[in-house]
């Protein structure tokens, strides 16, 4: 017999503490859709996605009903489109439109994979795809794009870093009339994981099976409530234990949903991503967990240590709860998607420099940060280079998703609503790194890469 207090605990986690499954993401390989004729390739892309994912949303809804656990998003990740473009040539935007149409047909809100992996250099299709990103994000609403520009094994492709500064800026410029939304769907990675279920950076890696189900859990609200119940008298070791136990429970639920989705869709289960993903909803904030630990506001001194503790404890608790763990797995710190981060950025306590330090100890990078509209391409490139360096040296994933707020400056806001939230434009250091960025070339792989 299940214990009454366990039942009530689960119910209150879901009802009051915003526990949910953030996403069930179906990864679909498009390698078989390669064709020398781009229109035929696009047809194949549409057919394969709609065939594989036709029941994704329906199945997600059924699982949600059966277990009473909200499943917020059902999404699709596909093979990096640059690989298809290598065979077909032609206008890459056609692929984006085919993805958009397929996503609409399947009823998913985002589809990832308008991507290129260029960490060591550009191969056929890569450059054309990257140059088409701003337009692809302009003419679609569901397509997400990512570019991997560095890795611990290969170093950082500084030519790509230079290029991406301009691409990020143009993505914002083309969508300036829609709150620069283009740049919210573009992620620049170092050490991009091939099985990440979270958007906008999800794509289906080449080492993955034909079709796979990956699940991303959530639950910052649950962790914060557990810490609040533990009180301020417990020491840091006890804090870590509370987080571990809570993460275990959250992940078990993710594992159950992943297993069930995989069975019902007859698609292999890939991984559970152990990320604490916040939403702008009250009580669903990673910043508030850090503040519950005893920081006056997120961004003050001590934030990096608190985040390191949180990130590590989430992994330790989650890893035993799932048979396969992967993706990004850690705490997310997107500014616009986290009520506590937004407040801290608005009050000036949380700065870009502090966020950069925080990315060294958590799962992603500078995420969903609005920067002044007059920020130059070189500065955006330099922000990307700094983040990539942190990822490369620490053998971890880092990413940059900054949104140049065209026509706006510090003190203004970009508002997207929904999961993307709202972003206060943050102050940045405008000293020029132009000469460094314009050199191009490649930062050699660090000594850490020589593990054999």
């Amino acid at each position, binding site marked *: *017999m*299940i*214990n009454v207090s366990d039942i009530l*605990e*689960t*119910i209150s986690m879901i009802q009051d503490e915003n526990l949910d499954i953030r996403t069930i993401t179906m990864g679909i390989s498009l390698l078989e859709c390669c064709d020398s004729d781009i229109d035929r390739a696009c047809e194949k892309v549409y057919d394969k996605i709609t065939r594989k994912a036709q029941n994704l949303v329906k199945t997600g809804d059924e699982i949600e009903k059966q*277990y009473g*656990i909200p499943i917020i998003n059902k999404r699709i990740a596909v093979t990096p489109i640059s690989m298809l473009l290598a065979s077909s040539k032609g206008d890459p935007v056609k692929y984006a439109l085919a993805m958009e149409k397929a996503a609409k047909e399947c009823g998913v809100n985002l589809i990832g994979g308008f991507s290129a992996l260029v960490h060591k250099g550009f191969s056929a299709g890569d450059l054309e795809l990257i140059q088409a990103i701003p337009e692809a994000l302009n003419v679609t609403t569901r397509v997400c794009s990512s570019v991997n520009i560095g890795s611990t094994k290969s170093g950082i492709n500084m030519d790509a870093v230079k290029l991406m500064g301009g691409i990020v800026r143009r993505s914002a410029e083309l969508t300036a009339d829609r709150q620069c939304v283009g740049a919210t769907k573009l992620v620049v990675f170092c050490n991009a994981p091939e099985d990440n279920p979270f958007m906008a950076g999800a794509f289906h890696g080449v080492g993955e099976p034909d079709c796979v189900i990956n699940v991303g859990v959530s639950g910052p609200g649950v962790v914060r409530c557990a810490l609040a119940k533990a009180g301020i008298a417990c020491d840091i070791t006890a804090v870590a234990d509370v987080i571990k136990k809570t993460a275990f*429970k959250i992940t*078990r639920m993710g594992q159950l949903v992943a297993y069930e989705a995989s069975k019902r869709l007859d698609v292999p289960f890939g991984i559970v991503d152990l990320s604490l993903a916040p939403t702008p909803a009250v009580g669903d904030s990673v910043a508030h967990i850090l503040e519950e630990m005893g920081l006056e506001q997120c961004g003050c001194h001590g934030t990096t240590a608190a985040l390191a503790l949180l990130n590590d404890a989430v992994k330790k608790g989650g890893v035993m709860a799932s048979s396969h763990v992967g993706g990004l797995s850690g705490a997310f710190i997107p500014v616009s998607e986290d009520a506590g981060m937004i407040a801290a950025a608005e009050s000036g306590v949380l700065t870009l420099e502090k966020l950069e330090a925080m990315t060294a100890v958590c799962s992603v990078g500078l995420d969903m940060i609005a920067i002044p509209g007059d920020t130059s391409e070189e500065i955006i490139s330099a922000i990307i280079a700094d983040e990539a360096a942190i990822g490369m040296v620490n053998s971890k994933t880092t990413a940059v998703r900054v949104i140049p707020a065209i026509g706006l400056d510090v003190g203004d806001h970009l508002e997207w609503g929904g999961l993307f939230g709202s972003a206060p434009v943050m102050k940045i250091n405008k000293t020029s790194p132009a000469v460094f960025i314009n050199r191009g070339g490649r930062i050699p792989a660090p000594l850490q890469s020589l593990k054999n």
Partner: protein
Amino acid sequence: MRAVITVIGKDMVGILAKISTICAEYNVNVSDVTQSVLQDMFAMIMMVDISKMTIGFSEFSDKLGEQGKALGLSVHCMHEDIFNSMHRI
């Protein structure tokens, strides 16, 4: 296959009767009931067997939800696996 029905809200006459009537209507057997009243807040947990249920899980869950809304209570029906996986290793 078993599910857990939870009813939380203000205590009143006939909660158990109304919920178990819905169960009976769709051939759902109630195997265990635990209830407690804290001040005037009422919490009832029913363990039910849904293997011979005559409608789909979603519809059954919706019926209970509607009844709950009519009574001003929060009524949820969840498959037992979620509790087993969260609280048992």
